[in-house]
């Protein structure tokens, strides 16, 4: 049995590292950062978010502030979504594409509205591992003579507070009326009487906010939330939570070789937009149909289908493993046991013909084939309170 050992590579650390160490968190390298994987244990942290509230240090994520008179106009060619419909205080989940329609990164575009000089202001939150590449991509495609682009990643702390009790807990720390912020809405205000930005977004499938504050306020905010009983959660629980919610993880479920149409992200493509990078390739895919689709799999037994495992189809109508074709037809991109559902779930790319709900498939796990079934995504959907 091999147990991960720490690498000697220098890693970036968030301003909250001391908080994590005080809680005896286990850390690991992630996207070039030393990040907490777990505090109490993945299952306990996962359940806290589903049933009460949990918090995540996500300060590693790339945070870019942009301002300019024609900012939205300049960003439009970089994303397949229509940013012109964004009203101040609204946000959109979208992707950067390459010319072949492959996903360079997934990100959220938060539109703040116009500054008093009339400039449009936007915050982009991108993945940690792709942040420097995104910055380069932006610099290549926008006119920096008319726009400002500031990477505030090191100076800001970003904490996600998620779960059914998250908003009520946060409300005790701010005068901002959080309930008035709609899903994917965001607002600037104060927390603990210091400047803060609140975004009603997340990566867990639960309601909650992501709060950005100055790095100097980070530890106090973290400690305050901790004292209020919010469960600290690591990347382990973040992964099982987002998987249950069937949210893609960049670098695993989506990357520069997968298109939004294959990944089930066609809803974010605005076909009315006359042009954006990757549009031609996506149009061709749309006309011809994509050959593979990202699907949700549910395993019958306890064996977990993990990243990279081959997915196979039956070579005949028989449903015994001996009839499973020797060749794989697809691949698992993410998999875990679902702490909420109690059985293993996975995301996998499979041929479009085998992507229908109810389709029986097999996953090869360490040389043996185990039965799986295509199921609806998300695996878990929170019950919304009216």
């Amino acid at each position, binding site marked *: *049995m091999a147990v991960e050992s720490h690498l000697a590579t220098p890693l970036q650390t968030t301003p909250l590292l001391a908080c994590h160490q005080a809680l005896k968190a286990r850390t690991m390298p992630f996207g070039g950062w030393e990040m907490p*994987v777990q505090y109490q*244990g*993945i299952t306990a942290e996962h359940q806290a978010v589903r049933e009460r509230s949990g918090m995540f240090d996500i300060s590693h994520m790339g945070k870019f502030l942009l301002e300019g008179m024609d900012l939205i106009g300049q960003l439009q060619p970089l994303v397949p979504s229509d940013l012109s419909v964004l009203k101040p205080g609204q946000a959109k989940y979208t992707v950067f594409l390459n010319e072949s329609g492959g996903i360079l990164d997934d990100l959220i575009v938060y539109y703040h509205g116009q500054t008093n000089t009339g400039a449009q202001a936007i915050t982009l939150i991108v993945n940690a591992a792709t942040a420097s590449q995104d910055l380069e991509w932006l610099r290549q495609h926008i006119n920096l003579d008319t726009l400002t682009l500031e990477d505030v990643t090191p100076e800001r702390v970003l904490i996600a507070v998620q779960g059914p009790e998250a908003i009520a807990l946060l409300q005790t720390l701010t005068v901002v009326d959080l309930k008035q912020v709609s899903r994917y809405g965001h607002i600037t205000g104060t927390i603990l009487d210091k400047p803060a930005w609140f975004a009603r977004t997340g990566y867990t499938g639960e309601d909650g906010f992501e709060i950005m504050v100055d790095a100097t306020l980070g530890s106090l905010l973290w400690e305050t939330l901790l004292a209020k009983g919010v469960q600290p959660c690591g990347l*382990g629980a973040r992964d099982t939570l987002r998987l249950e919610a069937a949210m893609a993880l960049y670098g695993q479920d989506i990357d520069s070789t997968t298109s939004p149409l294959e990944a089930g992200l066609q809803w974010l493509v605005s076909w009315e937009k006359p042009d954006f990078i990757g549009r031609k390739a996506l149009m061709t895919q749309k006309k011809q149909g994509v050959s593979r689709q990202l699907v949700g799999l549910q395993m019958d037994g306890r*064996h977990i289908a993990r990243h990279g495992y081959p997915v196979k189809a039956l070579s005949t109508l028989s449903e015994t493993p001996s009839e499973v074709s020797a060749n794989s037809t697809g691949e698992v991109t993410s998999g875990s046991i679902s702490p909420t559902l109690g059985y293993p779930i996975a995301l996998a790319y499979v041929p479009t013909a085998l992507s229908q709900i109810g389709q029986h498939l097999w996953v090869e796990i360490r040389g043996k084939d185990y039965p799986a079934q295509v199921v609806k995504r998300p695996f878990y959907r929170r019950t919304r309170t009216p």
Partner: protein
Amino acid sequence: MSFEYPEDLRYLDSHEYVRLEGEIATLGISAFALDQLGDIVFVDLPSEGDVVTQGEVFGNIESVKAVEDLYSPVTGTVVEVNTPLADNPEQLVEDPYGEGWLLKVRVAESLSLDDTLSATEYQLQVDGE
């Protein structure tokens, strides 16, 4: 964090332990490794009558986070499998050197454990991880 490593056991650097009593070897996983793995989902073990081979994979352990191969410190025939573990993997973490054993293996008299680590040697190794 410090864990207990009983003196009467021998350990592999891959974190399995063996307790040799006459011709019966009891195999299990060290407390350190179980802690590193986190929430255990299940353990895949061979069946009674199967042969395990020193240095080779005899099963694997799956946690929420990862799956890891289990290596056998001995060669021999499996005489007993801790089947209740399948339904109750928490037992592994609660009592890794007692109720959390995995297999009992009948080994040859000539068995040598020279390549395994003593509790002290093993402790030194994991302290470095």
